[in-house]
């Protein structure tokens, strides 16, 4: 039982440290705050259950993202569809701090990026989300996705080429105006 107590204590600390990015990732994958809350809880439940699979020499954050990734995939499979965060609320609905930051962002370019992200293949979006929320490398993402590392990079690069062209147009329009 003492070992289980240590396990729970350690996971509690990991939850405090990493719940934000994990929540963000789940929300991007699943679409709503309520679903992300459930997925986060599920992630830590599995982390507790399969704690023996954790290698302490590895980054705990990456281990947790591997679990969260699988949780989201399973949930999406169960629902027979994967909701990509089209229904994310307008940033203006966020907390005041986010409102402040958002208002100050380069709105035009950001909007272009948002639109183009919507058009990216789901796999590319997952690559980006695992990178930004989980800080995973291309090798770690390749392991999760069952791809070769080079394939991850090529897929991302090709998918971003369209985005780059749109961004260049936005900048040209901005310069012309």
């Amino acid at each position, binding site marked *: 039982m003492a070992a*289980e*107590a*240590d396990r*729970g*204590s350690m*996971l*509690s*600390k990991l*939850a*405090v*440290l990493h*719940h*934000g990015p994990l*929540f*963000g*990732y789940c929300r*991007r994958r699943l679409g709503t*705050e*309520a*679903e*992300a*809350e*459930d*997925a*986060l*809880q599920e992630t*830590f*439940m599995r982390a507790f*259950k399969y704690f023996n699979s954790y290698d302490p020499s590895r980054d705990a954050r990456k281990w947790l993202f591997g679990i969260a990734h699988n949780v989201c995939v399973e*949930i999406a499979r*169960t629902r027979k569809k994967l909701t990509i*965060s089209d229904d994310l609320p307008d*940033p203006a609905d*966020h*907390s005041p*701090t*986010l409102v*402040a*930051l958002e208002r*100050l962002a*380069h709105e035009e*370019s*950001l909007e272009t*990026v*948002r639109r183009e*992200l919507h058009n990216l293949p789901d796999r590319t979006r997952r690559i*980006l*989300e695992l*990178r*930004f929320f989980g800080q995973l*490398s*291309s090798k770690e993402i390749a392991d999760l996705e069952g791809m070769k590392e*080079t394939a991850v*990079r*090529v897929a*991302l*690069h*090709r998918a*971003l080429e369209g985005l780059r062209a749109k*961004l260049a147009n936005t900048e040209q329009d901005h310069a012309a105006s």
Partner: protein
Amino acid sequence: MQHPEPHDLTALAYDLVEGAERETLLKHLAECDQCRATYDSFRQEQTLVRDAIVRDARSGPAEARALERTLLMLGAQGQESAPARGKLLSLPLWLWAAQAAAMLLVAVGLFFILRPETEPDVIPVADTNRAAAVESGIALVSDNGGNWRPAEAVPFDAWTKAGDELTIQMLDGSSAVLQADAIFNITYESDMKTPILNVLDGRGFISAAGDAQLLVRTGDTRLHALPGAQVLVTSEGEEGWSSNAQSLRSWTLPRNAQAEVKHGDVLVVPGSRKFSSVALRNGESMRWTPQGMDARDAAGQSLTLSLASFAIEVGTDTTHDPAELAKLEHSINALMLRLDDVQKRHGELKTADWFLEDELRLRTFGQSLQVRVLVRGTGDSSSVALNLNGVGVAAWAIGGGISFEVSRDNGTTRHQYDADSPEVLRGKVPADQHELLGLVKFEKNGDGWKVSEDTDNLAAYRKKHNLPGKD
């Protein structure tokens, strides 16, 4: 020269590459302008993509709720009190049963035993050591073992990492919103009134209080945010900093940094002094790298004096083109107008006056070149700046405080000592730097101090080290 594959540059810009491969790619970038330009554009794009993805998905209240539920579950405060799971997990029966069994295992096995352990192990921060209060989010500080641990406040002069989006409030009412994983620390000027916020890595939106000033440092550049100013700072550190708190030292500098003034006035003073300082206002920005600082107005026009102008400014042996001199004078006049404008609106602020004086004093280097020279004193502040064959010595007095700074290697390492008397200052400065300290004379001036060059000691130092004279 063999260039990397484009998809590898994309991966590098998106931080997907690790280890030796990353080193190899970065080495290539250092030698290849073409690839570096591509990488820089990818990197800017990455910032936008990250913002678009991360910001929209984060929500403070929902994250707090999710954390609370998770901690409750892990603490197993009884099966009955465990929060209900959402409809999302209306999974197949076998899976639900397995999950319920797991839940029960956690609940029964850990009841009582875990409860004392589930409170996050938070580092306490004594009131006397608090540099800022945490308004929302999680502040992580080093536990001296190289690990980041949650703290109940931002301690004075300790590297702090935003464990989440973190909102802090400093003692004078200034505030900052640091994005997750940003690394920073907070100290105060020697008067213990003006906060100094060092942004080492990550992004922060910083607001000076309406009636106070705030000093933001990133790279070796100081951003003097005047009352009410708001500035968005982005700083990029070396790989590994964010995970190794032990490697961070007070003189650590980021790889590059940017700042964008969103509101009000910000005086920018590059520590290297290679370029003139400048007053920025709403919509204007600056970018710093170890090679120098560049400031731009809202239209993208450079506001900093060019490197060539600097050579003229310090009076080297450069042959001076009259057209170049005229251009320099025009640039200086434009900067002067900006400073005049700031001074009109913030003229009563002594610290701001000091920076203005400092800014103008630097121009005296151009005197022999008949570039327009203006020196204005504030009466309440004084400073000394010496460049001794790559070693920078600076001292300044403002209010009742005095400071002494030694920088080496073109400003990439820098040590500053603050005190309220020369005796105390001498006790703080390491013995091997006492010779440099002796180049500065401290004299009582009313309630405060006045600093100036100790001409005798300076002449002796130059002779001893075979350095040319100032003139």
